[in-house]
């Protein structure tokens, strides 16, 4: 079902006109309300008057996660605090969180976008949907929740953590849809299998996102659970889940481009790339009031397809992600940068010991192991002291990234160094 046919099936010309009108407005807004952007534009010698439509997009400055960090916490907000009704935050590259704010209208638009996505997955007000993303600062839980309510579905706010309870309620409530990370869905499927309940559920659709997954994983969970699974994409800087979502034809994710203007650029030269070429995805928010962003570099690598989809939507589609242009990892839906581990280890005093992050998927759940070389200064003849060290490392890492890592102490100089530069990440999940 198409939730908002007027917007989702607009002709190309109409869409570009709408985008142009909205772009000039948002540029005006950030120029006058956000000093940081005003200065950025002045450096480039660009004024709001120079931006007459989307053809002028390339004149605007880029925004990165660093800009959000430099203006922490509220420096990029373009609405007075009295109009901000909610904030969310995700982890930044070096400890400081990335904070985003929403006005009441932003929340409404977000809910609309999530409602569009869930409609693409066939969810209607007749459905009972379990929201099994984390609720809290992470945008996943509340974002999906408000969207599902806006759609009129019956929302069961499960959050994460208690899989047995989730499975029991899935059965007892006869839940027909679920929103969660793809790895969590596979874990749920296994729990159902263990409990002998795979056939006792009424689930029809799963809307999964917040971490990369493969077409094979989608087919695997569709077969196992006898459902349809959909890929939802979003990032808190732009809004949260519901920036794009795939439809029943699974030929790319439809971007709600009346609100989020997508571009593909070459991450090296920063020049725009042609339709179909793979590059870095960049978004300009067109309607956001709380924290509108110009040309935000997502670091996600993908390509864009503007042809009309068999489902009837004209919205541009982005392909499944082909990786990242930075070293960010997504572990259990949480963004993790190796630099965070590095600065956490600095808390042990002195220089950072050599470390290696190993990411695996065990029973369909991501597992992070951090190996740390036991240098002389950490060494002891007592197991108790070494165990304390290992707990301390686990603690500082958990504080930094919010995930519990398994810590393994290893002998000095055993972690690989290639060309003098240490290898810090081994990702065994093979998702791309």
């Amino acid at each position: 079902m198409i939730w908002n046919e007027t917007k989702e099936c607009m002709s190309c010309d109409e869409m570009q006109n709408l985008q142009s009108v909205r772009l000039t407005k948002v540029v005006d807004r950030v120029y006058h309300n956000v000093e940081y952007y005003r200065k950025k534009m002045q450096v480039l010698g660009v004024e709001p008057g120079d931006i007459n439509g989307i053809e002028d997009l390339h004149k605007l400055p880029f925004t990165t996660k660093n800009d959000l960090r430099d203006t922490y916490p509220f420096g990029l907000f373009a609405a007075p605090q009295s109009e901000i009704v909610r904030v969310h935050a995700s982890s930044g590259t070096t400890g400081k969180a990335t904070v985003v704010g929403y006005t009441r209208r932003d929340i409404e638009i977000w809910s609309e976008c999530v409602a569009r996505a869930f409609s693409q997955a066939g969810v209607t007000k007749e459905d009972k949907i379990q929201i099994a993303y984390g609720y809290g600062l992470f945008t996943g839980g509340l974002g999906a929740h408000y969207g599902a309510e806006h759609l009129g579905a019956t929302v069961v706010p499960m959050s994460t953590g208690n899989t047995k309870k989730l499975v029991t309620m899935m059965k007892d409530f006869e839940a027909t849809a679920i929103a969660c990370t793809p790895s969590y869905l596979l874990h749920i499927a296994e729990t159902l299998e263990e409990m002998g309940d795979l056939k006792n559920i009424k689930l029809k659709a799963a809307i999964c996102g917040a971490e990369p997954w493969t077409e094979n994983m989608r087919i695997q969970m569709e077969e196992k659970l006898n459902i349809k699974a959909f890929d939802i994409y979003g990032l808190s800087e732009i809004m949260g889940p519901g920036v794009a979502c795939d439809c029943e034809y699974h030929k790319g994710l439809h971007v709600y481009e009346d609100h989020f203007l997508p571009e593909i650029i070459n991450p090296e030269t920063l020049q725009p790339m042609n339709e179909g070429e793979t590059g870095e995805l960049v978004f300009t928010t067109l309607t956001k009031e709380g924290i509108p962003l110009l040309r935000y570099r997502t670091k996600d690598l993908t390509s864009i397809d503007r042809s009309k989809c068999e489902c009837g939507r004209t919205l541009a589609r982005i392909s499944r992600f082909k990786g990242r242009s930075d070293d960010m990892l997504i572990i259990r839906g949480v963004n993790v940068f190796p630099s965070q581990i590095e600065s956490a280890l600095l808390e042990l005093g002195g220089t950072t010991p050599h470390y290696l992050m190993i990411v695996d998927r065990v029973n369909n759940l991501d597992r992070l192991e951090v190996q740390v070389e036991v240098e002389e200064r950490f060494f002891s003849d007592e197991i108790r002291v070494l165990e304390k060290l290992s707990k301390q490392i686990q603690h500082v890492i958990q504080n930094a990234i919010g995930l519990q890592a398994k810590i393994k102490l290893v002998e000095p100089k055993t972690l690989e160094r290639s060309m003098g530069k240490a290898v810090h990440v081994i990702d065994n999940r093979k998702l791309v």
Partner: protein
Amino acid sequence: MFIKQLSVFIENREGRLEQVLEALKKNGVNIISLSLADTSDYGLLRLIVSDPEKGKQGLKEDGFSAMLTEVLAIKLSHRVGQLQELLNVICKAGINVEYMYALSTGKDDASIVIKTSDLPKAWELLKSEGVEAFTARDIAKIQ
């Protein structure tokens, strides 16, 4: 009155223990006694050797994490209850035993290596009970 124990950190994987022993052999360091404490990921090898300094040096050259720790090596006799009585004295003084293992001297006695939370105080107490300790020189003479 304390002797130096050689402590080595080894990862719990095939061949590592053997490589430690090889490094010692290469340097002509004789092992008198040893204790291996294992966890799932790593082991701690504690050694009493003929020449601890040389042993440490040799291990470092081969890339191992090794350190020297002071421990107490005491002579006991083969009498039921003697160790218990001595530990009783130490415990009453609020001293904790971190670890302990047997020291093989090749002679007909029963000796142990012990590390406590307060080593000097433990030694004072044991000495007043008439216990004798091995010196580094005693250890070097053990064949």
